[in-house]
């Protein structure tokens, strides 16, 4: 579709852009202490964007000369991104860390990042891939370092910049090799070019793929490209940590799925045989080992943390590992499982981080000790946090179990050569129980039972906690609608 015609199908992004611009301009008119009101503009804009996504046609096409895809798959991820952005904005209202700063830009940058994530989820051209990743990365650098008076936050930002620049450089190199081999930047054209490549190009192809994997692996914080994660997650404002652990990860997975299926697959869901296009290296096993390493490292290091925030940072690496288990399968149900997992993970992980934000604000710290007796002092927060921890462990009847269930089901469906991966996965869930339940232990088993119990003083906190907790619980035993929605979003992989 030509550029001009494309605009007619680009409403969500256009609305988002206008929202961001309005927010930036509106911010100019607010005094410093009122600048949080920008968030309301943004929330309105996000709601409009969500609305425009929901009413837009289910047309499957490419926009802007074949650089951006418009399809239910990207719409699914856009909805996830919008929900998480809106929730993080709501969560930021009560953040004590942000109290000392003018927050107008903070909210605007968050929305720009959402825009970048939109592009990530729908890019089908390697140039667009790169631009989208850069938009997201640069906004993340800003946000990670937003607490400029706090050294850790500066450190986080700097580390993020260095790692980000390095990995996107490597990725760019890989993309350029790929361009050299195929002579095109578009996914679908690449696919047919690769199919007709002569065999002496296979080394170059392998190198290109590995380099591109570095970039993607960095985005979803897969081992061994995860080293930035803990420090960045710990130093950033907790709201941003929550956002980074959910939204860019979702978009990153969308990008990986799309890239591998559409460049190396035949556009339909990959079957494991399609990996043969990259002969010489057992890709599925390699990706499987990466997944196993990611969850194991994430879990084993998470056990040793004393800060709940840092524990959650490592645990988010582990969760990326669980989702990666479904990547080497490249089956329809594998993609499906990743999408279910991301949906479930969004609520439970944001929820866990929100409680950390709350505890940070109320008890002045984010270590396990700060959670002592929380369940007695504030039963509501305690129960909700227990729910999030149980869900992150993956126990029924919570959303986390459904996510894991679909992942394991996809792995086992793929055949007995992947059973070892399922085995590593379930053992890791057992390991993760140890540190998640430690939070519960501190909340209930430690600390005195107090006679005075209290609810969160702010209504907003209660409401946001409920908004996060109710889906975490309900999706644990009734996820039919979510499953159907994802099924519809997957039509592009059913063969168009």
């Amino acid at each position, binding site marked *: 579709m030509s550029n001009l015609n494309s605009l007619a199908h680009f409403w969500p992004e256009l609305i988002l852009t206008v929202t961001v611009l309005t927010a930036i301009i509106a911010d100019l008119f607010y005094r410093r202490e009122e600048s949080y009101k920008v968030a309301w503009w943004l929330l309105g804009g996000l709601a409009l964007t969500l609305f425009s996504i929901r009413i837009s046609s289910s047309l499957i096409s490419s926009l802007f000369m074949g650089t951006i895809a418009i399809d239910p798959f990207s719409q699914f991820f856009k909805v996830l991104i919008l929900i998480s952005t809106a929730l993080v904005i709501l969560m930021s209202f009560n953040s004590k860390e942000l109290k000392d700063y003018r927050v107008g830009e903070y909210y605007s940058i968050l929305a720009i990042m959402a825009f970048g994530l939109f592009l990530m989820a729908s890019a089908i051209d390697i140039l667009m891939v790169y631009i989208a990743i850069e938009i997201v990365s640069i906004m993340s650098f800003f946000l990670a370092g937003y607490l400029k008076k706090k050294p850790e936050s500066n450190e986080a930002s700097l580390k993020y910049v260095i790692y980000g620049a390095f990995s996107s450089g490597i990725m760019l190199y890989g993309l350029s090799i790929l361009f050299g081999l195929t002579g095109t930047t578009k996914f679908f054209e690449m696919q047919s070019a690769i199919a007709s490549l002569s065999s002496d190009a296979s080394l170059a192809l392998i190198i290109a793929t590995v380099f591109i994997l570095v970039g993607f692996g960095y985005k979803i914080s897969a081992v061994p490209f995860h080293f930035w994660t803990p420090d960045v997650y710990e130093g950033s404002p907790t709201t941003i940590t929550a956002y980074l652990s959910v939204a860019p990860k979702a978009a990153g997975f969308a990008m990986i799925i799309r890239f591998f299926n559409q460049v190396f697959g035949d556009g339909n869901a990959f079957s494991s045989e399609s990996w043969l296009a990259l002969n010489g290296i057992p890709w599925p096993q390699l990706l499987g080992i990466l997944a196993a390493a990611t969850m194991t490292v994430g879990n084993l290091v998470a056990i040793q943390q004393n800060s709940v925030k840092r524990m959650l940072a490592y645990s988010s690496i582990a969760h990326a590992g669980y989702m990666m288990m479904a990547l080497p399968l490249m089956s329809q149900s594998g993609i499906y499982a990743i999408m279910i997992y991301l949906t479930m993970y969004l609520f439970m992980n944001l929820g866990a981080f929100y409680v950390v934000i709350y505890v940070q604000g109320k008890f002045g710290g984010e270590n396990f000790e700060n959670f002592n007796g929380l369940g007695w002092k504030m039963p509501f927060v305690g129960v909700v946090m227990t729910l999030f921890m*149980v869900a992150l462990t993956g*126990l*029924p*009847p919570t959303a986390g*179990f459904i996510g894991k*269930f679909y992942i*394991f*089901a996809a792995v*086992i*469906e793929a055949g*007995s050569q992947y*059973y070892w991966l*399922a*085995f590593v996965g*379930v*053992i890791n*869930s*057992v390991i993760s*129980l*140890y540190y998640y*339940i430690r939070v519960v*232990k501190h909340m*209930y*088993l430690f600390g005195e*039972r107090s006679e005075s119990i209290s609810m969160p003083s702010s209504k907003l906190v209660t409401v946001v906690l409920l908004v996060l907790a109710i889906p975490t619980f309900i999706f644990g*035993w*009734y*996820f*039919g609608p979510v*499953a*159907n929605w994802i*099924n519809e979003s997957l039509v592009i992989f059913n063969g168009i």
Partner: protein
Amino acid sequence: MNHLLSWIIWLPILGMVAIAFVPRDKSEVIKKIAAVFSGLQLVLATYLWSIFDASNGTFQFMERAEWIPSFNITYILGVDGLSLPMVFLMALIGFIGVFVSWNIDKAIKGYFSLFLLLNTGVMGVFLSLDFFLFYIFWEVMLLPMYFLIGMWGGPQREYAAIKFFIYTLFGSVLMLIAILALYFTCGNTFDMLVLIETAPTALNGMLWWGMSAIKVIWVLLFIGFAIKVPVFPFHTWLPLAHVEAPTAISVILAGVLLKLGVYGILRVNYNMLPDGVFWFAGALAVLGLINVIWGAMCALAQTDLKKLVAYSSVNHMGYTLIGMAAVIAASEMNGENLISAQAGLGGAVFQMFNHGTISAMLFILVGVIYDRAHHRDIEGFGGLASQMPIYTAFVAIAFFAGLGLPGFSGFISEAMIFIGAFPVFKTVVIISTLGILLNAAYFLWAFQRMFFGPANEKYNDIPEINKRELFTVIPLAVITLILGVYPRPFLDLIAATLNVLIESVVSYGGLAAAM
């Protein structure tokens, strides 16, 4: 009454909701709500028993509802002769458990909410016939159990609770893999009724990494269930959890939760992987033997009365395993000895029920003395018979029932197990009768040390067992005595179902050689 099984499962949840609306300082009201709801559940379970058609070996009172059609997940409930005694046992122990917990003084609201949630989880496992549902209920039990041990338990409660949690979760995730493997190899269904039909043949000849798929799935499931039983060497969580848990929770744990493992093996492994039964029966008998001897030896060495009782559970569950292994007696190569198989398997199920009542009684009685003396050291008492005569009488009943004295139900089931297993596992049976001897030794020795000999002055005015406690013990004692002299009603109840089970196991006996 429609949806009888659903009512039995969900009543405790309704009770939990009711408790949620009671202010937390109204502890009497909370206890009464818990008692009323578990009482109602017991009434329903008894009613279920009375209208259950014992001559029919298939599932009855089936309920079926759409749940998640996109993954073929259905809400299916049903009861047969195998699950009915367990449902009744849970309802009974759950009701009694409320009164055993009457003296809990810390966070009563939380305690009874979790207690009722645990009840629902256990009931759900016994009644669900959809594997997904089964698994959900199986895991729902874990969290309440963690809290009940971890918050209301003894000095080492945190460690005991997390050990229990991690151990059982480890077992259940292996089970999850097995469930999914069954799902994908046997026609994309979680419906246990369908799986029972298809699984025995669908897996034939399938190889995974050179191993028979049947064996792999069998072992995964077995580990999951064996941890609950607990089978040696997976039993180490049990003494710890028992000792640290509050009395009522020990009662539920020993009385019902351990049965979940055996129930699972019979329901899933036996029904769906009959070939594996033949492959594993020998190992099962030997594991049972180890449980019997190891449990008895450990019990002999204990000075803590509760630990002694805990190890006696390990010992008693060993007999069930031996009885279960006897099922292969009915196969062609073992001479189609149907009577042996019936006696062995029937004995195993009967032993499950008996251990439920006897160990519950034992733990309640341990709780009674602990509440008064605040310790459970066997050596710390002496001559209690003169100080607490009524209590002594009940301990005598429980101990004698525990050691398998004729006239008590435990004797019948153990005798049945030995009779059934003898033709196929002669050595195992001969050695395990030694276990009976050890059994008698540790119970009688403990009895002698605690109740006879010079009276410990310290406990001269120790209060006698009170009415509430008697109320919790008497029903169990009566059941033990009645079934000890007249086991017929129980055995008739389970016979038809077990015959179906034996038949389905044996009809695949010929395939075992080909494996």
